[in-house]
């Protein structure tokens, strides 16, 4: 953000110039001060200005100049011209008139208005054009005097959505998107108009050529469509490949089962061991394919949310039941605790799936002696489930990517612990479907905490809580 200081004594000039400067200079932070040495010095000491505008007729105190020079700030002196080059220039430059009249006060920004790479049009109280800058004339393909005192509406073709007349009638600062008629080139140029009513019912229109922006919007929109199509192709590809993989997978699994079930005779221990290895890895492959399909279905919005009445404690109890044995087998202390909640509406299958995926993830990164807890609570508006583990935690630089598909933290984990990189991505996708959210806190080496929030839709919460 650029910081500008304008030092000006005249009240009207201060007001109008302030409006114009802040409008023309993008990201301008403009402070306007009278020529009060103490105030100016104080401001120079507290702020770092990029540019200072000074009324050339003011005499600044030497201490002010010293400070400005020491800070090496660029200074533009705004001076009055005494030339009289027709109505337009005289309107701004004020001729020989002095600041007693309002016309003269406007003379300061004549130079500025000429410099700006936007069209600038001033209109009188009847919306007749009284000034247009060179940039606007070029844009509209007209001579400077050609349109003087003509109705400003004749320059534009209005858009039904934002009629220019409404915008110009309004005293507030307003924006309109219309077309500028360039009869010279026989084209309509899409423009954006920023309108500000000035004092005595006159107004200023800042006209911005939107062609480049519109073209960019068109290019971005086309690219967006292309990317959406490519994304769809990718999803379809994953979907088709996954389905195609299922048949050979079925055959392989059945073939292995045929042998391990001793249908074709008894095997020795070593043969049986390797069949178990094959079977275990076929299960892993099945899991990967199923998760790929689940992910593509979430992304293609192919899943339907089926809300049923349930309670938070029953959800948590189910998830606890699903992983209790597995946690005990791994030597992980697994616990759950929940407020008693009134029934609310949620797709409980999907909610259980979300919690399961996060517990699975916690189990994956926990080892003997670690703790995993599920704590549920209800506020007036939300059901909050906190799943905490004392496992290996997530490095801070990984936290932002944790929900990306196929992203895996610490891939070199022990045997049997390799995942698909899809679990948390699926959990996040499902939570979004249920209008909830997931927040993570994690410290590497200390464990992670996943906070899952689902919006509630029930009448009242019963008091008290209980431990499952």
């Amino acid at each position, binding site marked *: 953000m650029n910081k500008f200081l304008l030092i000006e004594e005249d009240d009207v000039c201060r007001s109008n110039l302030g409006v114009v400067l802040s409008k023309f200079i993008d990201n301008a932070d403009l402070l306007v001060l009278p020529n009060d040495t103490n105030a100016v010095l104080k401001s120079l000491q507290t702020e770092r200005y990029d540019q200072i505008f000074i009324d050339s007729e003011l005499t600044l105190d030497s201490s002010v100049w010293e400070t400005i020079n020491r800070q090496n700030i660029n200074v533009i002196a705004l001076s009055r011209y005494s030339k009289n080059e027709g109505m337009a220039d005289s309107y701004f430059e004020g001729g020989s008139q002095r600041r007693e009249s309002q016309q003269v006060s406007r003379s300061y920004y004549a130079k500025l208005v000429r410099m700006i790479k936007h069209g600038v049009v001033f209109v009188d109280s009847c919306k007749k054009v009284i000034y247009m800058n060179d940039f606007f004339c070029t844009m509209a393909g007209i001579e400077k005097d050609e349109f003087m005192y003509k109705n400003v509406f004749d320059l534009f073709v209005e858009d039904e959505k934002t009629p220019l007349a409404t915008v110009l009638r309004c005293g507030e600062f307003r924006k309109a998107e219309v077309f500028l008629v360039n009869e010279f080139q026989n084209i309509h140029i899409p423009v954006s108009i920023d309108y500000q009513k000035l004092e005595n019912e006159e107004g200023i229109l800042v006209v911005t050529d939107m062609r480049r922006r519109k073209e960019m919007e068109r290019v971005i929109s086309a690219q967006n469509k292309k990317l959406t199509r490519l994304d769809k192709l990718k999803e379809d590809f994953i979907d088709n490949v996954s*389905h*195609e993989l*299922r*048949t050979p*997978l*079925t*055959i392989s*699994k*059945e*073939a292995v*089962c*045929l042998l391990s*079930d001793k*249908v*074709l005779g008894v095997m020795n221990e070593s043969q049986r061991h390797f069949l178990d290895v094959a079977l275990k890895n076929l299960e892993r492959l*099945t899991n990967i394919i199923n998760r790929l*399909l689940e992910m593509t*279905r979430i992304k293609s919005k*192919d899943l339907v949310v089926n809300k049923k009445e349930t309670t938070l404690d029953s959800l948590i109890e189910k998830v606890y039941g699903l992983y209790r044995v597995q946690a005990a087998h791994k030597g992980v202390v697994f616990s759950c605790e929940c407020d008693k909640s009134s029934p609310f509406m949620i797709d409980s299958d999907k909610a259980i799936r979300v919690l399961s995926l996060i517990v699975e993830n916690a189990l994956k990164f926990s080892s003997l002696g670690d703790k995993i807890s599920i704590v549920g609570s209800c506020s007036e508006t939300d059901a909050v489930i906190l799943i905490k583990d004392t496992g290996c935690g997530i490095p801070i630089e990984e936290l932002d990517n944790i929900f990306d598909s196929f992203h895996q933290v610490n891939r070199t984990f022990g045997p049997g612990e390799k995942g698909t990189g899809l679990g948390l991505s699926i959990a996040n996708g499902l939570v979004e479907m249920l209008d909830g959210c997931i927040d993570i806190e994690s410290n590497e080496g200390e464990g992670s905490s996943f906070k899952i929030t689902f919006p509630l839709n029930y009448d009242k919460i019963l008091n008290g809580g209980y431990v499952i």
Partner: protein
Amino acid sequence: MSTGKKKILIVEDESDLVTILQILLSHSNFEVFSASDGDAGLSLANTVLPDIILLDIMMPGKDGFTLLRELKSNEETCDIPIIMVTARDRMGESCQLEGADSFIVKPFEYKDLEKNITELLSKVE
């Protein structure tokens, strides 16, 4: 003369799967017949009149749904329970809408298929 065994017809173009299912189903005391496409499946269904049919959806030529409709609209075969086999979970609903008695999604385990068959046969009886 009846062997006392239940007759099952597998209509499936994956010959390896058919071979394995034949062994497993025979082991479970079924008399197994198989066809590798829809037309062969239709003619075998009419001659053998199996107790239950395992029908793959995606097959070259006549697909499983077409065969399902033909079997269900034929007086001789309309009461035979049919289990559709699909690789797509979302096909399950379509299977039931088309008149299938049950469906199973690949990759399935034999014990689940066996359970499915047993349940359907006990319903018929």
